[in-house]
């Protein structure tokens, strides 16, 4: 039995020790907002926050997340909500599939760096692939969220 705290709620689950956190969240707990894209830390679709740090849940064993606070796209935080508002304002998503990961990565960025430069944004976001190519909008929306947050 393992206990995971996701979005403030605790879940007791049966899972092998080496099962990546991604699959525990998706297939065992049943929160499907966190996505599979590559399984090898290349695309960022599976990003979640672990004690406030962005991690690739496809490449972290579930045991590593025990006792830590996990935030997924289904969760809430002030920063995440500002980003959501900016995402809606900029009509960012196309297919939407990568956007959970994009929003989580952007949340971690703004939580650690209130006024990132363009280079900071590029560095923080370049681990997240968007095959639909919404990067220009994501970048604009991040600036917009900063504006909303600072207001």
């Amino acid at each position, binding site marked *: 039995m393992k206990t995971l705290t996701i979005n403030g709620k605790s879940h007791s689950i049966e899972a092998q020790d080496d099962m990546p956190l991604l699959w525990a969240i998706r297939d065992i707990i049943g929160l499907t907002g*966190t*996505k599979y894209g590559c399984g090898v830390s290349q695309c960022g679709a599976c990003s979640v926050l672990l004690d406030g740090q962005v991690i690739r849940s496809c490449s972290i064993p579930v045991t590593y997340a025990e006792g830590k606070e996990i935030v997924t*796209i289904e969760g809430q935080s002030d920063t995440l909500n500002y980003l959501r508002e900016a995402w809606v304002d900029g*009509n960012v998503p*196309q297919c939407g599939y990568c956007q959970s990961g994009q929003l989580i990565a952007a949340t971690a960025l703004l939580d650690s760096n209130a006024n990132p430069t363009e280079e900071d944004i590029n560095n923080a976001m370049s681990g997240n692939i968007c095959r639909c190519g919404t990067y220009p909008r994501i970048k604009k929306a991040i600036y917009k969220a900063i504006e909303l947050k600072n207001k």
Partner: protein
Amino acid sequence: MGAIQNMSRRNFVKVIGLASGGLVIGCQFVSDKNEIVRIDDGTTFTPNLFVQLKKDGTLILLASRSEMGQGVRTSLTSVIADEMDADWNFVTVAQATGDSKFGNQNTDGSRSIRTIFEPMRKMGATARAILISAAAKKWNIASSACKTENHYVINTTSNEKLFYGDLVTDAMKIEVPTEVSLKEKKDFNYIGKQLKSVDLTDFTHGTAVYGIDARLPNMKFAAIARCPSTFGTVKSVDKTATLEITGVEQVVELERVKRPFGMMGGVAVIASNTWAAFQGKNNLEIVWNKGSNGRYDSEKYMQKITNRVHNKAKVVPPTKGNITTAFKEASSVIEATYQMPHLAHAPMEVPNALAWVYDGKCEIWAPVQAPQATKTEVASYLGIDEEHITIHVTFLGGGFGRKSKPDFVVEAVALSKKMNVPVQVVWTREDDIQNAYYHTTSAQYLKGALDKNGTVTGWLHRTAFPSIVSTFKPMSDYGAGFEFGQGFNNNQFDIEHMRFENAKAEAHVRIGWLRSVCHIYHSFGINSFVDELAAKAGKDPLQFNLDLIGKDKIRKEKSPFPLNTKRLKNVLKTAAKKANWGKKLPEGHGIGLAVHYSFYTYVASIVEVSVKNNKLKVQQIHTAVDCGMVVNKDTVTNQLEGAAIFGMSVALHGKITAKDGAIEQSNFHDYQMTRMSETPNIDVTIIESDEAPTGIGEPGVPPIAPAIANAIFNATGKRYRTFPLSEHGLV
């Protein structure tokens, strides 16, 4: 109000009745031919688009096409809402299941808007007319004394207002009008405006359900090992290590289904979760019979087709003048060869499907672009009638053509049938890259003649590429007419002597269509070569292109939207103006252009790059598009921005290679995508137009790669004729 539309085919639109407390209106059309067809006896009615108005005002519009990022759920329904004068805040969109009653739902060829724009307008206008009649009756006035505004009917004499929701019951009793008026362009509220996606809340909260998110009680998860070389078979399998994995329940062999979209076959691992299935698959020890494609070597193959285009090949009409004379009389002649590798679609959501076969029925939840083709495939596999098959079309995490080929659905169906439980098949990213339907690989040879004034007098274009037809009919070793028609033998130029040839190219992998299809390589060859001709002639590429396109004219061709050279030149001029063509560029920078007509849409892109220490940076892309009347401006902009990034992935990184029959790339580390750090500024200009709306999902892609290559030439004097540019150390 605009022109009166005759609705004499009376059953086109019909009130169906009260269903779940609302007024339901349906309409019927045949979507592919751009015409509204009503040929029934008046007793049966099978509408393919629905509007449902509830008493609380909620307006449910049924989207019949798949959403894969192209905004179709929003744009299609906004057309109905506009003609209805509905308040967008009351609109929700429901997704139609895959069913022939919804007309052709296959979402490809950039045709959704093109084919059902008019029917949807009439649908909305009819609903509006019915609501007006209902209100007029209530007030006991003529319909002409009423107008509509934002979900209300207004009595123009008394200024009384009636809410659409409150008219539901009365509207039920109204006969469908025989004619309705469509709005004039100036009166549109949503069409042609910026309208946000109807799905933004779900997209930003992780609640949009994609195929991979579909869940059923007692379902199993499956991963499948398929032969690395196309159509190879299993010789032997050792499953010991697989069965040791916790969560793995069974290992099942699957036979290939020899149909274009049939499954490849292989060894399936059934497990209680996706991870166990993936692990189990990795632990299988399989010896394969590699089959006839087991020696495919894409590098050697490229040499082979390149040699072929360097020699005379099969002539493809139309031939104009005499190319031999042209070269003989030319004051200069140049030639060039362009090569492009295979590509894989790599949508962010891998192919997957959940199927449940029970009691002679089958239910499917899957991200499919072509629900009807899927149904046909499944019916054929199970040997049951299509009416026993239900397809729930989920959101698609990208498609780009991959998800119109439902082999992955057949796999899930086969496994569910064998296991007697719902089974979800999920491809790993490695499967997706290594067992795809590949965008073809191509070699093109171009030879051009210039006279002493630098005018092009002769054009010889030879192309060789394994054909998509080979997927449908093995041994189809030459290109097909529809492939030539994608920018090859119908290029935009009117040159005195022209000749087109196609060389043989056998397929060794499954070939399939990928976003903008043959336009990708034909546009690369043509736009690069024109740039080379301009350089040879010592002329400015912009003027050279405009001159080559020539006079304003509408091309004589069998097409609902024949090429209009004026519109083509206009997009080029517009992009050039936005890019400030001719401006002085910083040291190490260069600018290049490309213009291409595809899916009846005109697109020009102008790209500025910098090359420093042999490292390329794409700085700015200006794209101008003329896609006729625009339904949703923001969708068009978003698609064109996305196409620019997609085109950059093709130009900078896209390369799938095969050795000993097996694909050498496996995941995003060696099959790279454009990332945010590489993303330039992208500026999109949409030409205002009253012409019929045409495609937007694909036409933005073809100009990008050649425009980048031309810009690099402008910056460095070096010409790159083989893609991707990463192979040349530029990225």
